[in-house]
């Protein structure tokens, strides 16, 4: 259902009236005006092999606007990764609908995912890893190496394009992962805690780089993290999720000006205020789950 345009959408037929409340045709300015992703009443139940059912998501509804950077933050087990995996079509929802609307011309993939660390193929060089998505789409070898090399340079790995992942540091691996997703020029970028395993310094560097690349083309991004800091630094909106089962607790608009400087943004009083606010919310939740 996701590969269809706004009009012909078999999955979204019944919802065509009320579902896209904020959607106005032709209005492209400002975020959250044109809905890019519409999630409605999503639930997901996993059935274990021993017959035990686990509910990962319960009635999650969310709209992500065209060109919006949305961060989803929550403790582990809150279903945020499941939600992202459903958006990436790696899982199917148990009930509810998810619509991702194609607005660009065909030939561009609708979405690409940046995974947690260790997702580069150990048997492919950096160049082949970055060109992987292009290769899967049947882009001729010469053209895809050219495109891949351009993005490898963007993330500063030009001297390592013939290296294998095990020869790279954690930060370099995630740079390559970013390049692998960006080179496909997807309409939506889905990111699953891509910098979680990095040390603090590398994390800041990569966050800055991600913001820099993003400022250039303003793709729609859904970014999963368990770090409140990271969510506030990167997002236009922060979705706070709690579990178990996963549901959305609150959605906050983040109004730090762009382009953002990671270090300076962190030093503002507003940043501290928001951090405390989200932390209080999650803290009570984590305690509640613990006692249950």
């Amino acid at each position, binding site marked *: 259902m996701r590969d269809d345009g706004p009009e012909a959408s078999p999955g979204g037929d019944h919802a065509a009236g009320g579902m896209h409340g904020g959607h106005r045709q032709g209005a492209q300015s400002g975020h959250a005006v044109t809905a890019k992703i519409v999630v409605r009443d999503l639930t997901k139940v996993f059935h274990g092999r021993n017959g035990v059912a686990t509910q990962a998501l319960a009635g999650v509804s969310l709209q992500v606007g065209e060109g919006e950077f949305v961060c989803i933050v929550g403790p582990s087990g809150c279903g945020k990764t499941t939600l992202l995996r459903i958006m990436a079509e*790696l899982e199917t929802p148990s009930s509810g609908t998810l619509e991702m609307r194609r607005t660009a011309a065909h030939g561009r993939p609708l979405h*690409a995912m940046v995974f947690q660390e260790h997702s580069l193929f150990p048997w492919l060089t950096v160049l082949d890893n970055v060109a992987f998505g292009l290769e899967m789409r049947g882009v001729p070898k010469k053209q895809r190496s050219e495109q891949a090399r351009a993005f490898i340079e963007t993330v500063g790995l030009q001297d390592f394009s013939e290296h*294998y992942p095990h020869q790279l540091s954690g930060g370099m691996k995630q740079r390559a992962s970013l390049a692998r997703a960006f080179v496909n020029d997807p309409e939506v970028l889905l990111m699953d805690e891509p910098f979680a395993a990095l040390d603090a310094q590398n994390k800041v560097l990569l966050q800055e780089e991600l913001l820099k690349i993003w400022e250039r083309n303003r793709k729609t991004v859904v970014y999963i993290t368990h770090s409140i800091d990271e969510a506030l630094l990167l997002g236009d909106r922060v979705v706070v999720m709690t579990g178990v089962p996963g549901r959305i607790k609150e959605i906050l608009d983040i109004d730090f000006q762009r382009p953002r400087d990671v270090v300076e943004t962190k030093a503002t009083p507003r940043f501290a205020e928001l951090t405390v606010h989200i932390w209080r919310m999650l803290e009570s939740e984590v305690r509640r789950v613990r006692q249950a």
Partner: protein
Amino acid sequence: MTADGRPAGWSMEAKERFLAIVSPLALLLLWQALSWLNALDARFIPSPITIFEGGVALIRSGELWVHLGASLWRLAWGLLLGTIPGIALGLLMGLSRYVRAALDPLVAATYPIPKIAILPLIMLYFGLGETSKIVIIAIAVVYLVLINTMVGVLTIDTIYFDVAKSYNAPWHKLFTRVIIPGALPLIFAGLRLSVGVALIVIVSAEFVAAKAGIGYLIWTSWETLVIENMFVGIIVITVLGVVSTFLLKELERVLIPWHRDR
């Protein structure tokens, strides 16, 4: 210390290499000396020089090449006929839960049978000719390759399948870019084990029923008490093992470059 600051004499590495070469040579010298002194009974333990002369005679008469050729021919066919279905079945079992459920008990039940124990049965079905020797190698090898390939596929991290799926990898790309390279290190481990087992099996099979081959050479030398030729046979089969292991390692370096400096 020398004038330019380097420690005098050899580096530790050079010393180690020196010792590695010298110690077997010293042993050979000792052996030869004991033979000259008649401390070793030449009827049972011929001297290194006698063995060398025996080897030269076998090479001159062309006899050694006949035996070596016969064994190599059987090994090549046996390995080929064992590894190809082994890899194919291993991939199927690794990829399909149902194929695995169907074949796992069969494999588990028949794998522990010492393969040389069924040689008489194989000869009954395939005759005394080349076929039975090729078949017994293939049977011995197929299990090792199959089990290693299956485990190789099963231990590919699921995240790689997720990545492939998220980029809409067509199945043939999934196969050539994810499954095969992911399982390759363990497939190679299976191949290396196979070569070792194939050498054991071929020599044993040639003891019993053959008109040529290294095993046949060792066995007839024993029957005619030409002990130096027995030693020649043993040396040849050992060299075969060492050379094939070396070639496989080199092939592995070329085919699995991402494992090289681990």
